[in-house]
């Protein structure tokens, strides 16, 4: 038998002005199960809460209904007060008679009747409330960071500096990502390598960071605080423990003409290589597709010259399982490719720009490698086709970005700034050259960004032409750029020596496949989705997984670093406690009735529904039922409404509670 206490708040005059609170208390007091009802001027005040606590103890109340403001306002307050008085906090409900009654009605009689009904409804509901224990989940205080670019490096260093172990997984043979490829960075023009490589070394030397390069995520199981991650460590063919990084193998390798991806295929590398001289770890990898030893079985020169005997042709891929409590995804970006894309792809490519077949039409990253002092030309701006210095250079912005007809409608955010930087770098290196920029808008929000952009025009003499380019074609050794200047309203034709396209920022290839392994959501471009665009920008909707950097959307370096540190802070918050506490509003399966149709599993957006085998004492399988993992469940209740046998129940919103409310009307 329930002994319900009902407390009606006046809220100063906010409620009592239009609702006759004494009458509500009187009428509600007559409802079956209500043992005590009273009204008070300010229930949320200290004396109000004490009144509540005292009544619970003196009247031996079993349930509590507080009729006051919205539960969004004070539910937590009253549940805490109830808990302090020794009751389970989930035996307390609020009836909203302010926002939903006294404030929206003028007629006192009508408002009072409505208030009585609202309170009555909650009285019926609270009778069906059950004691809900707080759910605690253990937390493994180790973190996985996927991606070794600046985002992953920053997040890994922050978490490791806080004293927690970090597993950093990078797909390429070296960490560093795209930032290591850049020449100089806007808006300060400091050398990217100079600020990046010390951080890479920090990662390699950090006692709390375990680095897996040339590795990929194979499988992710588990949930917040308790993930099991399987990492595929691809065969490097060089023993990392033995290798000293002397580089003799790379010098002796007879295969020398393999385009280096790190240099955007401008430079060449041997078959045993490190992608760039400052690579971390500085351990070479054998490119098995191009190595003579692997193709024909002959050669083996690198093994012969290796002093420490590190080269190992027999090495195989290894699968490593690591338990972690949190995952930071920092897989970064790739650039839009103007070559023709296969049918069915959202990306259309640029036929009007020759689909990437004109050798001196390059993208922004290739220009970065040309301008980089450690690049294939030693920092000289030279044409890829004939090695001549371009005297007329045209930059075209928004290639792929903001171009719905090409498949992408978003702005890539960084191109305006890096194109401005490119015009400066060009002007610094080719004094008698002229840079032209075709642009739609110059978008330069950011600290010292607009000043930087203006400098490219006012001091570095770049000519900005507002308009787009309709066609590029080769004419002799020139590239004819046909565009329009919409500010003047004329067609423009420039015979350029080189054209640089500011191609759109896109997620890494395979971003969707990784998202499916992680169980996180992504948008139609394959950018990963945050839990809330404004208030939870670094968390995934899947608990325990956080985002950093351009995998979530185009970002420049300062934004990426900020988000990476924010993600690290989220991980540290999670790791601050030994056990994770969460609201017990989770779904539960009544296993006796479950028929194992797994309709609930299909609708669960969180991947919280698992399959559980029920066996008898002999170990024979009786049936497979659904099991909702309370650590993962978001508490939406979609499974319950979907379940055909009505065997899932969302605690706090059970069918019993809802029907009791409807029947009270």
């Amino acid at each position, binding site marked *: 038998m329930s002994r319900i206490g009902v407390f009606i708040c006046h809220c100063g005059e906010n409620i009592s002005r239009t609702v006759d609170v004494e009458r509500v208390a009187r009428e509600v007091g007559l409802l079956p199960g209500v043992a005590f009802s009273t009204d008070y001027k300010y229930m949320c005040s200290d004396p109000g809460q004490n009144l509540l606590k005292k009544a619970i103890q003196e009247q031996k109340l079993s349930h509590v209904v507080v009729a006051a403001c*919205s*539960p*969004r*306002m004070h539910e937590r307050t009253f549940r805490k007060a109830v808990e302090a008085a020794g009751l389970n906090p989930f035996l307390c409900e609020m009836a*909203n008679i*302010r*926002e*939903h*009654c006294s*404030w*929206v*009605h*003028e*007629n006192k009689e*009508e*408002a009072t*009747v*409505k208030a009585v*009904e*609202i309170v009555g*409804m909650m009285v019926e509901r609270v009778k069906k409330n059950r004691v809900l224990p707080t759910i605690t989940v253990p937390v493994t205080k180790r973190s996985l960071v996927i991606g070794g670019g600046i985002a992953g490096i920053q997040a890994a260093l922050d978490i490791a500096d806080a004293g927690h172990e970090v597993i950093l997984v990078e797909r390429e043979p070296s960490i560093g990502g795209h930032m290591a490829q850049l020449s100089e960075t806007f808006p300060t023009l400091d050398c990217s390598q100079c600020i990046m490589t010390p951080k890479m070394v920090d990662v390699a030397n950090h006692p709390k960071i375990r680095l897996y390069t040339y590795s990929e995520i194979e499988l992710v199981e588990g949930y917040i605080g308790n993930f099991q991650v399987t990492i595929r460590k691809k065969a490097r063919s060089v023993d990392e423990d033995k290798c000293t990084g002397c580089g003799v193998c790379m010098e002796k390798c007879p295969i020398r003409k393999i385009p280096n991806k790190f240099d955007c295929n401008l430079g060449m590398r041997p078959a045993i290589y490190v992608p760039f001289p400052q690579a971390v770890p500085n351990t070479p990898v054998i490119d098995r597709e191009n190595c003579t030893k692997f193709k024909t079985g002959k050669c083996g020169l690198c093994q012969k010259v290796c002093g420490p005997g590190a080269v190992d042709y027999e090495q195989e891929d290894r699968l490593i399982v690591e338990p972690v409590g949190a995952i930071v995804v920092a897989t970064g970006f790739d650039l839009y490719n103007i070559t023709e894309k296969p049918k069915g792809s959202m990306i259309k490519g640029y036929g009007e720009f020759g689909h990437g077949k004109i050798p001196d039409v390059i993208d922004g990253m290739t220009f970065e490698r040309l301008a980089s002092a450690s690049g294939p030309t030693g920092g000289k701006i030279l044409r890829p086709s004939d090695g001549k210095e371009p005297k007329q250079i045209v930059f075209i912005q928004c290639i792929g970005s903001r171009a719905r007809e090409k498949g992408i409608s978003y702005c890539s955010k960084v191109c305006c700034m890096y194109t401005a930087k490119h015009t400066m770098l060009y002007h610094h290196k080719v004094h008698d050259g002229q840079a032209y920029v075709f642009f739609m808008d110059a978008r330069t929000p950011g600290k010292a960004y607009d000043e930087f952009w203006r400098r490219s025009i006012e001091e570095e003499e770049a000519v900005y032409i507002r308009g787009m380019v309709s066609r590029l074609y080769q004419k002799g050794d020139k590239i004819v750029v046909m565009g329009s200047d919409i500010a003047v309203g004329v067609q423009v034709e420039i015979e350029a020596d080189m054209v640089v396209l500011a191609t759109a920022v896109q997620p890494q290839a395979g971003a969707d496949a990784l998202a499916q392994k992680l169980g996180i*959501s992504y948008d139609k471009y394959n950018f990963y989705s945050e839990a809330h665009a404004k208030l939870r920008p670094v968390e995934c*909707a899947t608990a325990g997984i956080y985002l950093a950097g351009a995998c979530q959307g185009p970002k420049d370096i300062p934004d990426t670093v900020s988000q990476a540190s924010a993600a690290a802070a989220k991980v540290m918050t999670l790791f601050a406690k030994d056990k994770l506490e969460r609201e017990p*509003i989770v779904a539960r399966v009544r296993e006796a009735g479950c028929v194992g149709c797994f309709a609930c599993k299909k*609708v669960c*957006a*969180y991947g919280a529904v698992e399959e559980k085998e029920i066996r008898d004492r002999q170990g024979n399988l009786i049936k497979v039922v659904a099991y909702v993992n309370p650590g993962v469940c*978001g*508490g*939406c*209740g*979609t499974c*319950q*409404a*979907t379940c055909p046998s009505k065997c899932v129940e*969302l605690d*706090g*919103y059970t*069918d019993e509670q*809802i*029907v009791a*409310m*409807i*029947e009270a*009307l």
Partner: protein
Amino acid sequence: MHPEKQKHTFEPKIIAFVCTWCTYAGADLAGTSRMQYPPNVRVLKFPCTGRIDPVFILKAFQQGADGVLVSGCHPGDCHYIAGNFHARRRFAVFRKLLEFVGVDLNRLQFSWVSAAEGGKWVEVVTDLTEKVRAMGPMTEFRELALEEQWSGAINTPELEEAYNQI
């Protein structure tokens, strides 16, 4: 603020099933903004529209509701990623079923009201109340219930006839 308050002969009972993150918050906003709307609506809070079982709507009608409102987050805004999409599909089918059974679909309204749309909440509630008021009470379920259940009276002619036959 209000024109001459009209006296109505029939006050409909409206039950609103709303999600806690968008529409409930929207209704709260209508309150904090002191907007006015008819007092006929009773709000039931759910975590998500995805939790709302169509059976609840039937139950509401059975319990004497004259109109039912279901409202949640706008598509794409769901706090629980996709609950409102499941709700939308479910109710698209459920409406068809109700129509087939013969329930006037004007009594059942679906809408999206965000946490910022206090004004829209007032509009939706007022419109539905006026619409249902014009339609009159929903009697179909009650009549069915009367037919199927013994009314509890012990002196009906039928019973008397039965007694006499013993």
